[in-house]
């Protein structure tokens, strides 16, 4: 008997669709038939079977309630409205069949009844859906701003805001650990949806653990479920967060582990916790070291690029997120100082300029000084001697100059000390006599004179 009860109970989610179908079908027919009255005989049949199946749904629903341990409080609205729907369906059947026994009903227009019926069946169905899928099932996919406009509580991702200056004084739990758990775990482990009876939104709840016991073992991440589960391979069923959910990064997992090892402090700053800086570096803002200035710039006219490329000069956008350009004369070895005028329409956008193996001379420096955003400059394999190179010191973005295989002379090296952003100078195969000055400006600028050698070793000639 118990088996039958359970089995029938489980049929409820299936059976409920029958009355919904019959009744909505009936309502639709009523609407279509409102003028012609072609289907007057058909509509009551729909409601009759709607009523029969609604009774079946009510019975199975009640059995399900009995066998699956729902509290009456959570299903009462669904139960009463379900019974009401079944009754209403029969009522509509009798009314449309012209039964005269209900005087009260005769006075009510059929349209009014139909509208009430539509509301009733929708309400009942919705209540049932809420029991099965949870209250926020339908609204969950809505964007956050619409949710808050509807007065629904939203799940907000919290950002980890650490900087070079404040990371030590930031609070270990509040500013770092809490946001990680909040963004990656709390959507399933919160008071409303406590999967595995585990809550991870507040310190005391984290310590309480879940249905499998505590998730943090004192100062021992390797024994703590919170940490172990995140480290399991993706295809392990116990891996958390489950497949398909946003996964914590390697750095976040490592940090949570280190935090547990440090005795999971909920109070105090990062400095107090004694955790090493390396654990936090990936959360610090990334120092961009790009080969173009870190500013926004307007794109250049496509036509001017085409016009310049016709002369054989090669132009590339530096990448699709930046409008800076990389200009190369690799296909135009005849480029000389006078050709520089060609580049004027795009001069503010040039970040990389490769004039290697061209015919430029020391007179090019005055012109190059008009490229405000020049970052990487290649002048290798040219006849440049370095005279006038001080004119480039106005270029505040210039990071690297390549003068390999030029006539560059020693006396001009000191001029680089006035360059504000310069980091790298290449002086291999030049007329430089001594390679003593390896750095300038306290190590900010490094000079590579090249000329590396690999002296022969005895092992070079041993053949085994």
């Amino acid at each position, binding site marked *: 008997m118990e088996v039958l009860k359970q089995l029938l109970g489980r049929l409820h989610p299936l059976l409920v669709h029958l009355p919904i179908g019959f009744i909505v079908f009936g309502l639709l027919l009523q609407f279509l038939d409102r003028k012609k009255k072609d289907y007057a005989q058909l509509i009551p049949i729909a409601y009759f079977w709607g009523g029969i199946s609604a009774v079946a749904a009510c019975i199975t629903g009640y059995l399900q309630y009995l066998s699956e341990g729902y509290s009456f409080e959570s299903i009462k609205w669904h139960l009463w409205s379900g019974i009401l729907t079944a009754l209403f369906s029969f009522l509509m059947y009798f009314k449309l069949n012209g039964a005269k026994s209900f005087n009260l009903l005769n006075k009510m227009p059929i349209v009014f009844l139909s509208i009430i019926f539509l509301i009733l069946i929708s309400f009942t169905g919705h209540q049932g859906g809420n029991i099965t899928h949870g209250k926020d099932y339908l609204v969950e996919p809505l964007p956050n701003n619409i949710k808050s406009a509807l007065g629904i509580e939203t799940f907000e991702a919290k950002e980890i805001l650490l900087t070079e200056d404040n990371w030590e004084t930031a609070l270990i739990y509040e500013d770092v650990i809490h946001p990680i758990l909040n963004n990656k775990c709390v959507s399933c482990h919160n008071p409303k949806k406590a999967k595995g009876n585990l809550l991870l939104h507040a310190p005391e709840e984290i310590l309480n653990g879940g249905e499998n016991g505590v998730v943090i073992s004192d100062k021992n991440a390797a024994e703590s479920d919170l940490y172990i589960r995140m480290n399991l391979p993706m295809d392990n069923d116990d891996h958390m967060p489950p497949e398909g959910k946003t996964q914590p990064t390697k750095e976040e997992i490592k940090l949570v582990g280190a935090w547990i090892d440090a005795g999971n402090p909920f109070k105090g700053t990062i400095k107090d916790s004694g955790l090493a800086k390396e654990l936090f570096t990936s959360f610090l803002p990334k120092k961009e070291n790009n080969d173009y200035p870190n500013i926004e710039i307007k794109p250049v006219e496509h036509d001017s690029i085409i016009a310049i490329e016709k002369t054989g000069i090669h132009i590339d956008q530096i990448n*699709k997120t930046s409008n800076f350009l990389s200009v190369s004369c690799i*296909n135009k070895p005849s480029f000389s100082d006078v050709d520089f005028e060609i580049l004027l329409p795009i001069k503010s956008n040039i970040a990389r300029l490769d004039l290697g193996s061209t015919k430029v001379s020391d007179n090019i420096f005055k012109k190059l000084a008009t490229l405000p955003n020049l970052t990487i400059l290649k002048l290798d394999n040219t006849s440049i001697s370095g005279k006038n190179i001080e004119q480039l010191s106005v270029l505040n973005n210039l990071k690297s100059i*390549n003068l390999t295989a030029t006539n560059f002379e020693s006396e001009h090296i000191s001029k680089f000390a006035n360059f504000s952003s310069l980091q790298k100078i290449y002086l*291999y195969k030049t007329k430089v006599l001594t390679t003593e000055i390896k750095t300038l400006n306290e190590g900010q600028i490094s000079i590579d004179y090249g000329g*590396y050698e*690999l002296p022969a070793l005895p092992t070079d000639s041993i*053949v085994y």
Partner: protein
Amino acid sequence: MKDLIDKLIQEKLAREAEAKTRRHFIKNCAQGIGGLALSSIFAGCDPLSSSPKKTQAAFSERDLNPLATLAPPYSSKVKSVIYLHMAGAPSQLEMFDYKPELQKFDGQDCPQSLLEGKKFAFIKGTPKLMGPQAKFKQEGESGNWVSDYMPHFKKVVDDVAFLKAVHTDQFNHGPAQLFMHTGSARLGRPSIGSWATYGLGSVNQNLPGFVVLTSGGNTPDAGKSVWGSGFLPSVYQGVQCRSKGDPVLYIKDPDGVTRNLKKSTIEAINKINKQEYLKYADPEILARINQYEMAYRMQIAVPEVMNINNESDNIKQMYGVEPGKESFANNCLLARKLVEDGVRFVQLFDWGWDTHGNIRSGSIDMGLRNKCREIDRPITALLLDLKQRGLLDETLVVWGGEFGRTPMQENRGNKKMAYKGRDHHGDAFTMWMAGGGIKKGACHGKTDDIGFSGIEGKVSVHDVHATILQQLGFDHEQFTYEFQGRNFRLTDVEGEVIKEILA
């Protein structure tokens, strides 16, 4: 959905066009003539038969200039890649992965727990562990381990970032090489170099964007597919150049053919080919048109760039080149020259690293030393040379094999082998990267005490690919090509950028 169907139909038409051969042509002619005869009889019966066939083929800008450069989607750290592949799989245990503990177990039986569920190419029964045959030392400021098989390499050890726990799921050369270069152990996927040139084009219009150089007396076991273009247009496949004799075969004009005559010949052929393309829309015709034009431009540029005789004696000595011969040293110098001239992807294969211990040249204590000597100086020189020319900032150098080798001595047929050797092993092996955006002197990943498996910082072949693409300015998850109704990636559905070795 409609786009998808259109794309599938296009692909089908392209396949049909590829299948059209001379036989079809003759068949078509026969039908055509028959049709002509009939059409005069039934003139006017079927108005459709006489209307010209409509075709949608047209030339896009990239069709006619497939190597035109494209901006990388994101900030790129490097412009070019030099990939050094040691075909046959070098032994990490004699080069970079120092395992003193393994020495203690030398000659002892390998524990059964390690062998359970593992597949080996040749090892049978219970093999014996074999200690490292090389002497190791910590070198440079980074203190990373380098063996005495690579005595020059210590000079650049602070410039490279090691990956000590790379793993692959293939244990035979062919599939493993395919996996390492195309992201799949099965044929049909484009190689990394093809993806790179497809996505970025190449700056120098007179040179191919993707050049392949081989040494060691043999080409890789997996064949040319390791530099093939897979489902990408054929024009993006690697162009194999030779360091001995003519760099590219059949590129020289025959005696008596002037450059002008050659030019007009190619122009005439390409005019016909373009008409053919408009008619049949076969992408292979496009590839052919472009290859003719590229070959014509290469006739001047390639002999120039492939000539290492003009290099200074210092440079030649540093690399240890042997002009006129096919050698890894020559190829390394060429790689630098090619990158200097704007080639996007240079792929070097050096064959002969399969040290099973069955022959002297394939032994861990002798043959491997010879192989290491052959690459030690050239690789060190390549890194130093790139550095002094300011090219290392914009070039990524990748070194590795298709897998690693076992900590156990090979016992082919359950017998003692003639020489000391190690079997194929994909669970953990070493690779390294150097160049733009790579953290100098880094060492990521760790293997267990005997070097059998990775225990920390394990990275897959897909992770290596994701990292290479990231350095070129791609997000490996977004860089796709639609084929047979779905988007394909080099990393398929896997791969994670190895941030630990990025500066």
